[in-house]
């Protein structure tokens, strides 16, 4: 009888060893980190899981269907898939390597050298990022199309008639446009990490007789590896799924890359074949996993501590007369990547017909149109409000995630790292469909509200936000955290009072980048919000679809000014300056 009682009572109680381990594990810190991991895993895996399940069904995601492998058979028994995948990887690889080299060079110039007007240069080099990719591509088509491209026309005027000097409709043209945008993107991601450098290691190298170049190549760059590799990987993945350049330049050039293939599944099939698009997206997931694996291999066992408690003002390298050459190089980059294409868009915004540059075509009516459009003003207000709040929330969340991944021994950190890459392995429109299918049946009513849009943008911002914050978190020395703990701070306080202030410039830069991507995203707005939702992306779509590319240019100019003013104010007030990161 007593045995029976014992037998009944025992299963309720864990063995002593387990209880101790459980008690040790259930610290407030672990519970919080577990909560963050579950929250992020839910945000990412719920819509992506719905998509993946949908790709094995005969119906599109979220609808009733029977099991099938047809999407995978269609995607992977066609030799064209592999051919296109190879072209894509080569194209993305070449443009990422070139863009990374340029971005790091410019980053070093503006942060680590005595080049004149460095603060201005930092702003100018980032400008191309703030031009929507579709308009940047159109700007370059205006400049480099074989017959009527402005630079070809100018070359013919100078050197006489002949074969066009430039042809945007080529593999080289695609790499050119992708590379320029990526340079600004990678530059924005790495510049704060470059700034957060502890000079002591470099000084030690200098003291040992190393030259500036040796220090840069053997000390500075290896220490910057996490931030640079993270940014380059993001940029690489972006090239695998971004549609603008493949559709506008690749299609006429008959150079087909992976986004063309995914686009075909969505655009050529009625209804759109999101199952096939997802099954193709699985390739991108595999490539991403390989990249993460390689990245981890490269960085395994190395220390990247750059910010210590001993003050970390980076050493300024004196270039001598070469500083004017560095200045000229930055200005040349700005003129080529920003002034040239943006001049086309500015001229477009002042023309009755985009591309006709005669004085009779000049007009201010496009600005009048957007400034008198009530929907534009409401869209702008809503975008600033919802986008601003969402971007900040996403970056704060990402800073927690990066903290857990980089600075703790939390058991789920590798899983969290992996999950945080996934949202960019599937194109935005396909993720939007996954979110539609997933959240429409969600027990809490979020579908059709702006709240779901917020969830969509936070989810989409995770890869970028986490990479940006990880790069910074890796550089912050453990002694800062330990000293806070010694003084009685809990880890949450340590995070808020020590790590967050140090990471603030990167956090705000990330919020600005996410805000820019938020202001452009359309598919999610159409699929996830209710009718009548007014955001700038909807207004842009409205003008674009009506053939009013001139009004689109005017709106892009307005957004460019707003973004740059925001960036300049953030830096002037110290939020994004080097001083913002001081203890």
């Amino acid at each position, binding site marked *: 009888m007593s045995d029976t009682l014992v037998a009944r009572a025992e299963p309720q109680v864990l063995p002593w060893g387990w209880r101790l381990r459980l008690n040790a594990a259930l610290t*407030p810190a672990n*519970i*919080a980190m577990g909560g963050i991991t579950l929250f992020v895993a839910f945000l990412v895996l719920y819509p992506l899981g719905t998509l993946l399940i949908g790709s094995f069904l005969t119906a*599109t995601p*979220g609808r*009733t269907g029977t099991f099938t492998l047809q999407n995978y058979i269609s995607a992977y028994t066609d030799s064209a898939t592999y051919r296109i995948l190879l072209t894509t990887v080569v194209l993305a690889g070449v443009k990422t390597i070139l863009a990374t080299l340029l971005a790091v060079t410019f980053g070093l110039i503006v942060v680590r050298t005595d080049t004149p007007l460095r603060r201005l240069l930092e702003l100018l080099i980032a400008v191309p990022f703030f031009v929507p990719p579709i308009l940047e591509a*159109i700007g370059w*088509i*205006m400049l480099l199309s074989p017959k009527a491209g402005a630079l070809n026309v100018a070359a013919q005027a100078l050197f006489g008639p002949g074969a066009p000097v430039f042809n945007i409709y080529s593999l080289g043209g695609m790499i050119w446009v992708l590379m320029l945008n990526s340079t600004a993107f990678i530059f924005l991601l790495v510049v704060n990490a470059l700034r957060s450098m502890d000079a002591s290691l470099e000084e030690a190298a200098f003291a040992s007789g190393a030259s500036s170049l040796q220090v840069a190549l053997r000390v500075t760059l290896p220490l910057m590896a996490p931030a640079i590799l993270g940014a380059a990987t993001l940029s690489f993945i972006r090239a695998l799924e971004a549609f603008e350049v493949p*559709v*506008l330049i690749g*299609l006429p050039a*008959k150079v087909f890359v992976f986004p063309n293939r995914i686009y*075909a599944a969505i*655009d*050529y*099939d*009625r*209804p759109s074949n*999101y199952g096939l698009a997802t099954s193709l997206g699985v390739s991108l997931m595999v490539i991403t996993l390989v990249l993460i694996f390689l990245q981890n291999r490269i960085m395994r066992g190395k220390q990247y501590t750059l910010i210590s408690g001993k003050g970390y003002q980076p050493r300024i390298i004196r270039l001598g007369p070469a500083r004017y050459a560095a200045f000229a190089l930055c200005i040349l980059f700005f003129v080529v990547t920003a002034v040239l294409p943006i001049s086309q868009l500015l001229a477009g915004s002042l023309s*009755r*017909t*985009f*591309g*006709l540059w005669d004085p*009779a*075509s000049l007009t201010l009516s496009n600005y009048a149109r957007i400034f008198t459009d009530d*929907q534009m003003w*409401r869209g702008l207000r*809503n975008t600033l*409000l*919802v986008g601003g*709040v*969402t971007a*900040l*929330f996403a970056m*704060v969340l990402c800073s927690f995630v990066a903290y857990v991944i980089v600075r703790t021994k939390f058991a789920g950190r590798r899983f969290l790292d992996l999950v945080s890459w996934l949202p960019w392995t599937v194109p935005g429109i396909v993720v939007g*469909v996954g979110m*539609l*299918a997933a959240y*429409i*049946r969600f027990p809490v009513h979020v*579908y059709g509200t*702006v*709240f779901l849009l*917020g969830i969509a943008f936070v989810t989409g911002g995770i890869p970028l936000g986490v990479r940006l914050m990880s790069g910074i978190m890796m550089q912050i020395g453990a002694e800062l955290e330990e000293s806070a703990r010694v003084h009685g701070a809990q880890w*949450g306080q340590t995070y*808020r009072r020590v790590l967050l202030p140090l990471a603030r410039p990167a956090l705000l830069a990330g919020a600005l980048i996410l805000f820019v991507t938020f202001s452009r995203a359309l598919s999610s707005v*159409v699929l996830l919000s209710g*009718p*009548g*939702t*007014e955001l700038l992306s909807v207004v842009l779509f*409205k*003008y*674009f*679809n*009506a*053939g*009013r590319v001139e009004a689109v240019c005017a709106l892009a100019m307005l957004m460019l000014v707003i973004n740059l003013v925001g960036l300049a104010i953030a830096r002037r007030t110290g939020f994004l300056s080097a001083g913002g990161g001081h203890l």
Partner: protein
Amino acid sequence: MTARQFFAPLGVLVCLLAAGCGSTAPIASSQAPASAAAASSAATGSAAANALYEAAKKEGEVVVNNQDPDRDKLAVDTFTKRYPGIKVTWQVGRGADISSKLITQAQANMYTHDVYASGPHDADAMRQAGMFAPYQSPELSAVRPDFLDPNKTLMPLYVLVYGLTVNTNQVPAGQEPKSYKDLLDPKWKGKIAMQDPRGSGGTMTALIGISKESSLGMDYLQKLAGQDMFIGRETLQLMTDLIRGEHAAMLGASAGNLVAERDKNPSAPFKQIKPTEGMVFTLNWMGLVKNAPHPNAAKLWNDWRLSQEGQEILAKEGLAPVRSGVKVERDEINTDGVKILYLDTGQDADRLPEYTKLWDTTFFKK
């Protein structure tokens, strides 16, 4: 630090985000209701129409999708003046995205949309998903019979007309192509642009029409492919390139595109050509969505869009009307006496994958 303290910043941001939720105002502003007497006299006058209006007014709103709501501003202003108390709310977006959303919503028993309007292929996808309630407006009696839906599910709204377009700086007067066949002349090699015909859209329709025309057929398309065509996806890109002289001729711009460009700039150097073999017509449909939340307002909107007044406004917007006897001032959309090379009502929608493969082989794998 407690978990509560830890999550406090998150909570604040969530609250801020939630505050943002309430900030998006609906697209259409509510109109001040006019007097009931004025509304009554302005309506068609029949008792049934008045009853429909009264029922619609109780619903207060109609939700319709649209790719170009600015173009329809005059339509909304006129409708809301004629029928005060009914707000027109646009769901802006591509027809394919909206249909995808509505079909998924219906699977979850969610119905937020009243009238779905699109080209024939997206409309066909909606029809095949059983997304329409079979409403046929009484105004259809005035519509050209060949534009009616034999299944009596959808209603025609307007017609997109496709021919050829040339750049008048590149092509002097008198040297324009008069027919599709003229484009095979070697002088056009490398000078013709067209929209990607794969998938769906105006050029898909045009090529189906050409392939079915006995005097042209697939033999013609094979030869056309040998003319070193420039193929792009965005009509906007193609029109811009045509006007600035990158291309001399273009296949697949709709008359509506041309009207929009002409309105922006009366002196822009382009000209529409109506080929002697005929023009391609694509019917754009509208239909009452099944379980629409505002069915009476939807019916009233459909009726009004097909009315003489509604169709005249469409003609002013640059879209060819489907109703007989509507005055058309713009030559680009004037289809009087124009031979129809092919009328796309969605009848070949099931064969689009087959045609996509055919165009892929013809124009991309040479």
